[in-house]
């Protein structure tokens, strides 16, 4: 799958992309900004194309692969544009586009529920709340901290190292044959159901598996969550409950008011 190894040449490619992003970040001055932005976007695009050309067949079907590259490109480009934008409202919109294309990628991999949940929770609710806050907080145009990115050099360096190691690890992880998790849904790139052969294989591997071939995707997800990871789900639920109670307490500082309401 991935042909990206941890070599010097691959590091150079990633550094090229990091340099492009560094040039794209807002710096508060408008004079030399335009030239830097053009050079930066050029460098970032070249690096992205070089990285993408190192990946071979991602998915079995040509149409799926085209869709994958399209969504992945939209996701990465809008992620860069999100941090490069001067206007926080526009940044929030690019962020929404990142999430939308990511949920498209989940859908392509057969994780239907995850993709719908991403859209409902992140794109539909959280980003809208962000937009609310941004719009209400800044009636008089952009603030100084919107025009300057904080520590652009350090963050770009950290990003380059992270991206390089991630891509390299992806390569090693894909060449190893130890992937019990992905085998469960490996055949389900577009179909709702994992293919019977794969499910039979995973059933063989785990005698008491709760994944059932005759049930749909959401059904199997529910089984996994509420049978295999029941305690974790309960703990997370309790954590959210505590957070909600804490939020109510912070809003209503007066305890007398709380009992009255």
């Amino acid at each position: 799958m991935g042909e990206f190894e941890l070599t010097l040449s691959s590091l150079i490619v990633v550094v090229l992309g990091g340099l492009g992003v560094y040039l794209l970040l807002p710096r508060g001055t408008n004079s030399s900004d335009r030239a830097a932005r053009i050079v930066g976007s050029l460098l970032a695009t070249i690096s992205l194309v070089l990285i993408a050309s190192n990946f071979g067949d991602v998915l079995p079907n040509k149409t799926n692969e085209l869709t994958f590259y399209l969504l992945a490109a939209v996701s990465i480009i809008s992620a860069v544009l999100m941090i490069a934008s001067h206007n926080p409202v526009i940044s929030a919109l690019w962020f929404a586009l990142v999430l939308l294309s990511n949920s498209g990628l989940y859908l392509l991999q057969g994780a239907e529920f995850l993709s719908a949940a991403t859209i409902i929770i992140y794109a539909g609710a959280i980003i809208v709340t962000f937009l609310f806050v941004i719009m209400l907080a800044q009636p008089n145009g952009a603030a100084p901290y919107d025009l300057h990115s904080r520590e652009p050099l350090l963050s770009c360096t950290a990003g380059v190292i992270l991206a390089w190691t991630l891509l390299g690890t992806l390569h090693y992880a894909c060449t190893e044959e130890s992937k019990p998790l992905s085998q469960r849904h490996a055949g389900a790139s577009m179909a709702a159901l994992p293919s019977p052969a794969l499910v039979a294989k995973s059933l063989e591997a785990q005698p008491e598996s709760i994944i059932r071939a005759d049930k749909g995707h959401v059904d199997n997800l529910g089984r996994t969550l509420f049978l295999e990871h029941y305690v974790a789900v309960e703990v997370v639920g309790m954590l959210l409950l505590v957070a909600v109670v804490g939020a109510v307490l912070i809003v209503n500082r007066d305890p007398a008011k709380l009992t009255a309401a």
Partner: protein
Amino acid sequence: MFSQDWIEPLIKMAVVIGAIQGAVAYLVLAERRAAAFFQDRVGPNRVGPFGLLQPIADGLKFILKEELIPSGAHKPIFLLAPVMILASATLAFATVPVGYYFPAILGLKAPIAMTIAPGMDIGLLFVLAVSSLGVYGVILGGWASNSKYSFLGGLRSSAQLVSYELPLGLSLIGAILLSGSLRMETIMDAQATSGWWWVMLQPLGFAVFLISGFAEAARLPFDLPECEQELVAGYHTEYTAMKFGMFAMAEYMHMITVAFLAVIIYFGGWHLWYVAPYVEADQVTLIGALLRIGILQGKVLVLVFFFMWVRWSFPRFRYDQLMSIGWKIMIPLGLVNLLASAISQEFLAQDAYLAKAVVSWAVLAACFVYGMLNVNPQGAPSQHALAKV
């Protein structure tokens, strides 16, 4: 390349998009005629017989009027907002079935599912997710217009849309538990095989769904986003010509989506006792298929008429009342319904529909009595908000 796998979805998309746009055009006419009927007027009847060509005249007007962009508007976002809202409203129909299967005639391979994306296991969630993206068009349209009325309208309505998504989702869970799937075809099949429509087993869930649906579609009595008396026209005050037309179309599409969801989840979809009972997918005849499409669309039209009826029957809520209805009444009711249906689903047999119906109607009656005893008709839910002012 040009196999049935490719051609079939394309034809379905063309048919669905074309039919929805045409339906929207004629629903505007129907709404005006219905409004006239309720107010003892005649309504538009000059263009063509019974005013049937009125939508074409309206469409021409939309296209030919001058496009205005207010000074100081954020131009790209201003232009993008109507596209966003219309795209999300259209995309929601991707997993909505418009009938049962179509028989494999004329050398077609298999019975054709009447959905653009029939295999989607999360059909219902997809509709909720995609239509929740429409709020971007509202909030950005209001913000980019550089007008205080638009901005206030956008803020109000996005708060409303985000708030009412919660009870809308909660109310559906009871029906999903009964059918055991999020696929809308499976939900209809479950109702057809049992012979019970979920509205009989989920009266409380349906009530919460319908009220939240009105709020999500921004229809009166929940049309706070527009609210002519207070905000000129809300978030689309500054929009003219076809851009305004796109907002109006998206609004009608939301109404159609809610009507489709209500029919599919609570009113049995294409099922009608003795007329259109459950059959296997490969046993559907041509007449049966057409009949089932007709039944589903007929039910949707009845519900859309109900929407128009409500518009002229109830006064509008105040904004704080709207919010307290959403958070203090609709969400608790949705939770009660979820708890009751989960308990009856767990402890009663799968086909004990009568017992489940008795339980759910008893819960509805209990909620009603509790509400009558505890909620002050002078607007008790908003007392707290009023005390602050």
